[in-house]
């Protein structure tokens, strides 16, 4: 099943032939062939570290292939700089935000014009208005980039690609930060774009997105392309069949999304006193972030409480307030009977509170440190890895090897700087660190964002097990499916307020959905 099995009418804009790219310790792309045709959404699937972003890096001029050829409109090209890529009509929305935080949206969009010119703000406005109208994207040109939520930032980046009137639009995990509604909109946007003759490369880990938005699917595995499904077969099959086929390609069928079936709430022993109680927890809102207004929550042992809500409605603030990274103005936080709102991060951790952040590179890890040390970042100085403050390298390395095994972290070695790993593998390092030893309450913030399917499944299983083992679990997520699949109760956050708490069950989806879009139950 290769691209040549059935040739689409139009000529490919981009053709990759036997592309290979290696990094110290890994072959990220291994003899990859790929054809990008106008009028198609070409979905790239693959596990974490499969080589998707690397391939994108090659197309957008960030890196050069070690071997193989790239043809644009049939003529061979060496794409030697992002500038060159843009001039060839290849626009990319990268996996990690690529806006200058200290510039306004307008200035960001204007970057790259001839250096001697005055920025043409007026002209930009017209162009943006026109595009926004036809495609239904709304951005505030005068807002500073650092004031935007990740979702909004991605919209700006998509807009940027369109303004440059690209012929090829690349979206690397652009849905990972979007709400279900946002994802739907992006899907229809892509459809409108390809109808205009654009070619789109769409990277995601969510199979339902792939099947509902894609025209053609290619699957990467360990850098190699292991299969492709062309448009006609795409249409001929129904979603279920497609999904199973893809899963077949990706994992030889050991998983399927069916175990994401409906969750049967385990009979809560509310007789047991709550292990975590938030009462009137309040935090002033800032220019860049919403606050918290008198949040009240109770979490019982063994309970899985979800926090739903559109990204940027105070979930991060809630997590920071709980973990002790930010002090609350008023209210109380009680961890099995003890008041902890004045405790430091360390003290709370000792008290049994665990926090798995969503900002992996920003605060979760020290990207230049080896994986082994990042596993212990929150236990520096504690035995057995440190004996009277002296480092025990043997123990540290052994511990690392252990966790790399258990959590299947794909890394060249335990000494590789963690920043070199792919997004998903970094996430596994964090998971391993937070869950590796005893805890009473665990806060997960977007635990599966950026994880491939198999890792998502196993991570979710871990979360279930943790709750089952009697810990209280607070699960913050923008992925409604995830919440419905895992949680006993789901609280919905809107602008720093808990607008409602829903018992998980048949009509939980609609109730939560209504709350999320601001309707009452």
């Amino acid at each position, binding site marked *: 099943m290769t691209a040549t099995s059935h040739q689409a009418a139009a000529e490919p804009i981009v053709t990759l032939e036997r592309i290979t790219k290696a990094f110290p310790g890994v072959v990220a792309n291994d003899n990859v062939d790929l054809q990008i045709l106008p009028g198609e959404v070409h979905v790239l699937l693959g596990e974490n570290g499969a080589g998707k972003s690397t391939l994108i*890096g090659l197309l*957008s001029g*960030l*890196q050069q292939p070690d071997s193989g050829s790239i043809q644009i409109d049939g003529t061979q090209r060496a794409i030697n*700089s*992002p*500038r060159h890529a*843009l*001039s060839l009509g290849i626009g*990319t929305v*990268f996996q990690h935000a*690529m*806006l*200058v*935080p*200290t*510039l306004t949206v307008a*200035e*960001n969009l*204007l*970057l*790259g*014009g*001839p*250096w*001697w*010119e*005055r*920025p043409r703000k007026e002209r930009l406005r017209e162009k943006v208005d026109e595009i926004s109208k036809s495609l239904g994207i709304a951005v505030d040109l005068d807002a500073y980039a650092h004031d935007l939520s990740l979702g909004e930032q991605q919209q700006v980046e998509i807009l*940027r690609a369109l303004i440059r009137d690209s012929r090829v639009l690349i979206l690397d995990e652009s849905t990972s930060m979007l709400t279900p509604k946002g994802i739907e909109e992006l899907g229809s946007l892509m459809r409108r774009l390809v109808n205009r003759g654009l070619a789109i490369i769409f990277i995601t880990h969510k199979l339902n997105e792939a099947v509902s938005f894609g025209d053609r699917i290619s699957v990467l595995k360990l850098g190699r392309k292991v299969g492709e499904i062309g448009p006609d077969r795409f249409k001929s099959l129904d979603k279920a069949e497609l999904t199973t086929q893809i899963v077949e390609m990706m994992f030889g069928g050991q998983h399927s999304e069916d175990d994401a079936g409906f969750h049967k709430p385990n009979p809560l022993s509310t007789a047991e006193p709550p292990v975590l109680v938030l009462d009137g927890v309040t935090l002033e809102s800032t220019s860049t972030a919403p606050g918290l207004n008198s949040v009240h929550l109770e979490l019982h042992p063994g309970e899985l409480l979800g926090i739903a809500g559109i990204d940027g409605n105070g979930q991060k603030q809630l997590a920071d307030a709980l973990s002790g990274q930010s002090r609350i103005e008023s209210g109380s936080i009680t961890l099995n009977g003890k008041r902890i709102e004045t405790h430091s991060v360390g003290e709370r951790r000792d008290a049994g509170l665990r926090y798995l952040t969503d900002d992996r590179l920003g605060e979760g890890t020290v*990207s230049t440190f080896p994986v082994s040390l990042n596993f212990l970042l929150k236990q520096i100085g504690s035995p057995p890895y440190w004996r009277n403050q002296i480092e025990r390298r043997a123990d540290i390395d052994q511990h690392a090897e252990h966790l790399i095994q258990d959590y299947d972290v794909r890394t060249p070695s335990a000494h590789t700087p963690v*920043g*070199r790993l792919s997004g998903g593998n970094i996430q596994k390092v964090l998971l391993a660190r937070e869950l590796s030893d005893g805890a009473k309450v665990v806060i997960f913030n977007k635990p599966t964002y950026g994880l491939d399917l198999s890792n998502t499944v196993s991570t979710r299983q871990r979360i279930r097990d943790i709750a089952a083992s009697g810990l209280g679990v607070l699960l913050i997520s923008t992925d409604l499916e995830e919440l419905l699949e895992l949680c006993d109760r789901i609280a919905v956050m809107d602008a720093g307020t808990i607008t409602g708490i829903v018992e998980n069950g048949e009509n939980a989806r609609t109730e939560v959905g209504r709350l999320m879009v601001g309707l009452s139950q």
Partner: protein
Amino acid sequence: MGSLFSEVFLGALLFGAVAAAVPLLLAGLGEQISEKSGILNIGIEGMMIAGAYFGFLVAYSSGSLWLGFLGGALAGGIVASVMAILCVRLGLNQIVIGIGLTLGLEGLTALLHHVQFSRTYPRLPAADVLAIPLLSDIPVLGPALFRHHLIVYLAVALVFVMIYVYRRTQLGLNLQAAGDKPAALDVAGVDVVRTRTVAVLSTGALAGIGGAYLANIGAGIFVPFITNGAGFLGIVLAMLARGRPVWVLLGALLFGISLSLTTALQVAGINIPTDVIQMIPFLAVMIMLVAFGRRSSLPAALGIPYERGAR
């Protein structure tokens, strides 16, 4: 003793303050460009002294101050190009190279001076001043502010040019992006290395002109180590200014005035050791920092070499 503080004298003091401020102003504005684009240019002292020596050499042998400034800019630019190649293109440690260049050029210029001038100590004739009509007749302020060599007015004008560049031009956006998020600038299709190179070269040229001013107009002669740390003051000014050219101007003037103050107090016969008076501007700045010590908004990527696609 009141008679001492005649108009003429006050005028001369202020004049001296301005004269002392100009090299700092040029150095500070220059450094600011590099820092905006993410390069901590510690080599600026070396660029200044190179400009001082070569600027003097040219001015002396050609008899033209303007050629002298050109020479100074050239020399500073050449030193800067070393920094650009090593630190911007190859990404070498900016502090090692910066200090290395400074030490090297202080030594080299002293060496050349020894070989060439140490017997004759050639000196330049007085620089011709451009008296601005009307303004220059204002008592005290007139002679102090409006009877300088044209380059002084140009240096001040540069402040406003830079404001315009930073606020209103594509280049300004590029510079800021290169300093705050180079990767974003790169994917927007602008060559980060090229942008930073341009910034570093501009810094070198301005520092060189500052040095040339110091030797050709400030002193009228080149002597070894003549810059005396002016470059490092420039770095401090640029950092304190937080990317705003006007603050560089004010800072430079603060230092210039405190120098003149030293003279004034002495001439007034007030018996204070110069060291104490020398501390005034630094004290003032430290107090300011303590008072309004806001998070200093330095570029996020300052001092970090840019490597495309690095993880």
